[in-house]
């Protein structure tokens, strides 16, 4: 029986949970002997000109090796000329920084644009000395009016990049001016929805160590992809082959560790510049100030349809706050636009986006990256529409779903959905949750006028995974003469369980037991070519690459075995259960992998492949959230969360559940409690974990997970990505549940996070509106 689909316990865990992982801070490589500690001096103001930096007091402190600023970076290649900014230039394809007049420097040059921006780097013998010395670096700022919000950016009273002449750095999508798409709609809802800025918050913050010797730079970084990091690090003026990047254990990334940030480049440069190895491990405070954050959109929606619930038209305008620097330019909102209509077959859809710079921490990918915003908005819009039409939200969803027979389906925004069983997924969730009974209990509480009301929230989502399917993923497999195998993957584990999953694939194809399979990732000397882990791409691309390499090794082994057996290649078979090579019809003769590999050239059987996929895949699902709302205080309690997340055949339920659990928790967190806040001067108000309300286990129920497996035809495993689906579905399910709990009081929408005060205020103002209506009717 194949090991695939079985509950294999993660092989990573014994080490991570007992002996301890080796993160950048734990590395004791000889190259890092005597490494200096790096401490960044960060901007304390949101927007200002730097009029002077005095490092003299810091330099006199004990243990200080150097204090470096942009003025010291004379040994770097000059940046490309800025050129003119053309606001109508076509959007950059892919998640690339904007460059040109919008370029992000390494250490700040002349101007700072957000609190936390690195201004200088202090190198010391020890960490303690670093913080003391950094405090003594005196930076003179000439403050400029802050641009702390999208609204302020659009008002253009203050420009972050004066050479650009505007704070709007990107525009894209379709023309959204055609009002006629709503002609004949009996029910139309129009409104504003905020998808607030949130922190990515991996358990391990950012960290980098670098050593330069003999013309070669080695960088250990907490990253989701060593190979991309190497490319980024060429910014310090070295060719890729003079750089080795190693990703040791990485304590989570959630998108914010795709590649490396400017701090890592500065650390690498400092190591080369001073000739001394340097290590930087950020504090939690720094992490909340300067690691890229996510979401940060304000959306305007209009949705219309018939009174019986058929949606005819949907319009979406996205305003993206990209923070101080356009790290991913228009990439995130372009995904929001692409996924705008979600799981629905809507005859007319228009969506566009505009990206502005603000004095906030730069925005980049965060678990879902542009797609959660699309799902949260259409799912909110559909509920809003259903409430306005007086229809059951489950019914409205079913009426408008894309039907199984319509796949492959290309949406009005151009998304090519591969496969889907949307109604089946919703039905499974409704059945598991006991939807009708929950509605009955809700009615009872409403009729009783109970202080604690019940809310039932639905979200049916589709998302795009492996968006860059064409880049694919690499894998090299060596089967050694002792019968063990080594897998070199270009994918990059940072908590997901790649080593378990990929070893399972090798065992399934080759019959080499998992404990004889070593998986190696994240070292550009061993794996120069690789793409990494993000966009829920690892199993479908990285896993398919493992399978492809395994099949090639198997072909090669079959040739060797045939020669050893003196049999025809076609008669040689591998028993994948025992891992023994045999000749068909001759059960007495067999060869082990060790015997076959020993005969290969150099005693190793080898395959080196790249798997690419023609298109991205589109996993989907439905989630139901049950909440209780204390209408006297606005406090929300999450009672149940039931989901059916379909990402194709499940390779290992343990890994899949892990991805779903974490995803749901983060999705619920955005709905209920998390938000990065700034004051009117652009000062962050949530720069410690006491102020940033990260969700904890105490706020979450046990999740009820239902299975559904609709394969894709796009890869041989039939799998899609599951890394972000939980998050994408959970946010709108929880938000819809809270609003559903108070919809009978006249509430139609509440923005996230659904804090007690927001919920309570919404109830109060709905009550006031009702009061005014009733009074004026008299």
């Amino acid at each position, binding site marked *: 029986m194949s090991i695939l689909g079985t509950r294999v316990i993660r092989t990573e865990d014994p080490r991570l949970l007992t002996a301890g992982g080796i993160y950048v801070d734990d590395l004791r490589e000889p190259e890092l002997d005597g490494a200096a500690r790096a401490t960044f001096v960060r901007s304390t103001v949101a927007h200002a000109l730097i009029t002077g930096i005095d490092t003299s007091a810091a330099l006199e402190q004990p243990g200080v090796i150097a204090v470096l600023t942009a003025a010291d970076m004379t040994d770097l290649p000059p940046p490309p000329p800025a050129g003119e900014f053309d606001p109508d230039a076509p959007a950059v394809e892919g998640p690339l920084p904007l460059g040109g007049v919008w370029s992000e420097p390494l250490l700040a040059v002349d101007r700072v644009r957000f609190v936390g921006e690195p201004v200088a780097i202090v190198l010391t013998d020890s*960490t*303690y000395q670093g*913080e*003391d010395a950094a*405090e003594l670096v005196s930076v003179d700022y000439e403050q400029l009016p802050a641009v702390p919000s999208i609204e302020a950016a659009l008002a253009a009273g203050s420009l972050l990049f004066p050479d650009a002449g505007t704070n709007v750095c990107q525009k894209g999508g379709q023309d959204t001016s055609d009002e006629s798409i709503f002609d004949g709609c009996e029910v139309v809802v129009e409104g504003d929805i905020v998808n607030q800025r949130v922190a990515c918050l991996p358990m391990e913050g950012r960290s980098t160590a670098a050593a330069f010797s003999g013309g070669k730079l080695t960088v250990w970084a907490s990253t989701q992809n060593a190979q991309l990091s190497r490319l980024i690090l060429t910014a310090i003026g070295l060719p890729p082959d003079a750089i080795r990047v190693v990703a040791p254990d990485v304590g989570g990334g959630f998108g914010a560790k795709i590649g490396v940030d400017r701090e890592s480049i500065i650390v690498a440069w400092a190591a080369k510049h001073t000739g001394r190895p340097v290590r930087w491990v950020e*504090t*939690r*405070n720094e992490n909340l100030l300067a690691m890229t954050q996510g979401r940060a959109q304000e959306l305007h929606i209009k949705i219309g349809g018939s009174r019986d619930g058929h949606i005819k038209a949907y319009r979406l305008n996205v305003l993206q706050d990209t923070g101080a620097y356009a790290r991913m330019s228009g990439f995130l909102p372009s995904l929001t636009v692409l996924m705008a209509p979600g799981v629905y077959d809507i005859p007319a859809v228009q969506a566009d986006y505009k990206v502005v710079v603000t004095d906030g921490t730069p925005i980049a990918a965060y678990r879902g990256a542009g797609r959660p915003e699309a799902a949260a908005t259409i799912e909110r819009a559909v509920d809003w529409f259903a409430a306005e039409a007086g229809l059951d939200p489950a019914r409205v969803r079913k009426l408008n779903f894309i039907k199984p027979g319509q796949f492959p389906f290309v949406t009005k925004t151009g998304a090519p959905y591969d496969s889907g069983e949307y109604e089946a997924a919703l039905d499974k969730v409704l059945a598991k949750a006991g939807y009708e009974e929950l509605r009955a209990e809700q009615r009872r509480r409403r009729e009783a006028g109970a202080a604690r009301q019940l809310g039932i929230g639905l979200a049916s989502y589709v998302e795009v995974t492996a968006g860059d399917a064409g880049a694919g993923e690499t894998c090299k497999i060596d089967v050694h003469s002792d019968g063990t195998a080594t897998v070199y993957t270009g994918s990059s584990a940072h908590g997901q369980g790649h080593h378990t999953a990929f070893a399972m694939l090798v065992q399934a194809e080759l019959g080499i037991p998992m404990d004889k399979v070593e998986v190696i990732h994240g070292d550009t000397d061993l794996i120069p070519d690789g793409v990494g882990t993000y966009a829920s791409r690892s199993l479908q691309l990285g896993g398919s690459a493992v399978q492809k390499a395994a099949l090639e090794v198997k072909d090669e082994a079959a040739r060797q075995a045939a020669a050893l057996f003196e049999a025809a290649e076609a008669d040689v078979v591998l028993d994948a259960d025992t891992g023994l090579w045999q000749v068909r019809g001759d059960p007495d003769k067999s060869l082990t992998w060790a015997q076959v590999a020993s005969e290969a050239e150099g005693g190793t059987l080898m395959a080196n492949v790249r798997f690419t996929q023609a298109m991205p895949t589109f996993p989907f699902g439905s989630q139901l959230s049950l909440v209780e709302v204390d209408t*006297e*205080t606005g*406090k929300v309690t999450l009672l149940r969360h039931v989901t059916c997340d379909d990402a194709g055949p499940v390779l290992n339920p343990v890994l899949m559940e892990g991805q779903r659990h974490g995803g749901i928790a983060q999705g619920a967190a955005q709905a209920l*409690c998390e938000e990065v*806040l700034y004051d009117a001067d652009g000062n962050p*108000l*949530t720069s*410690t974990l*006491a*102020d940033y*309300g990260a*969700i*904890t286990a*105490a*706020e979450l129920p046990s999740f009820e997970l239902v299975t559904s497996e609709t394969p894709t035809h796009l890869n041989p495993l039939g799998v899609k990505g599951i890394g972000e689906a939980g998050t994408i579905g959970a946010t709108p399910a929880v938000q819809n549940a809270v609003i559903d709990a108070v919809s009978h009081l006249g509430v139609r929408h509440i923005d996230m996070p659904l*804090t*007690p*005060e927001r919920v*309570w*205020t919404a109830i109060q103002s709905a009550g006031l509106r009702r009061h005014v209506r009733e009074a004026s009717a008299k």
Partner: protein
Amino acid sequence: MIPPAFTYRRASSADEAIALAAEYGDDAKYLAGGHSLLPLMKLRFAAPSVLIDLGRLPELSYIRDERTYVAIGALTRHHDVQHSPVLAAQIPLLAHTAGRVGDPQIRHRGTIGGSVAHGDAASDLPAALLALDATFVARGPSGTRSVQAAGFFKGIFETDLEPGELLTEIQVPKPAVPAAWSFQKFTKRAIDWAIVGVAVQGHAIALINMGTTPLRATAAEAALASGASIADAAALAAEGTSAGSDIHATKAFREHLARVLVKRALEEAGARS
């Protein structure tokens, strides 16, 4: 996230602690559980140059039944207050409140004396002690004195303690009806500090985070005393308070919460007794 350098002195007796405090003067701070002081130092909001560690003073860690009151040593950890059989029987409000402070790690480090001396209006135990009419015993170079809870909390992080004075004991009178208590703590997350909290013992009502110090809801108490219904008394809960606005709640919402929570607390206390 690293405090500036400081000198560390460990006291081996209460007297030595007081002597050390006198020696170093304004530059010194007592260190108890460290769970209020150290976060401030790590953020560099506080930078005492000397810390006098009280952590090894078992003489200040006890819970004793003194017939009319219970005496609690200032160094007693929240965990020990939470699990004290004496308090469970005699003053359940206090044991329960200690169990609602932060999370288990914090309750194993934080001390009742540190919580009182820190004088944070958002802390749980000071309000409970205010509702219980506790007395605080302080010892300084010039002797020992007692201060009523009602006169102890002076302003933002400001108490009646003189510089260098050591809080040694908290004396909590046994309530007439121990069961007539309620503790309402309103938070967004389980581990959070109270946005607003209410401690009720009998007809005494204390408010958490409704001003610069823990407060008694005097208007509501007076209404109760003159025979008002719980609902009518609770409607006065925010009278005379001066709650602030922050990222967790506006002043107006805090006032609303105070009214709701006082009503719930009075109802619960009434139902229990």
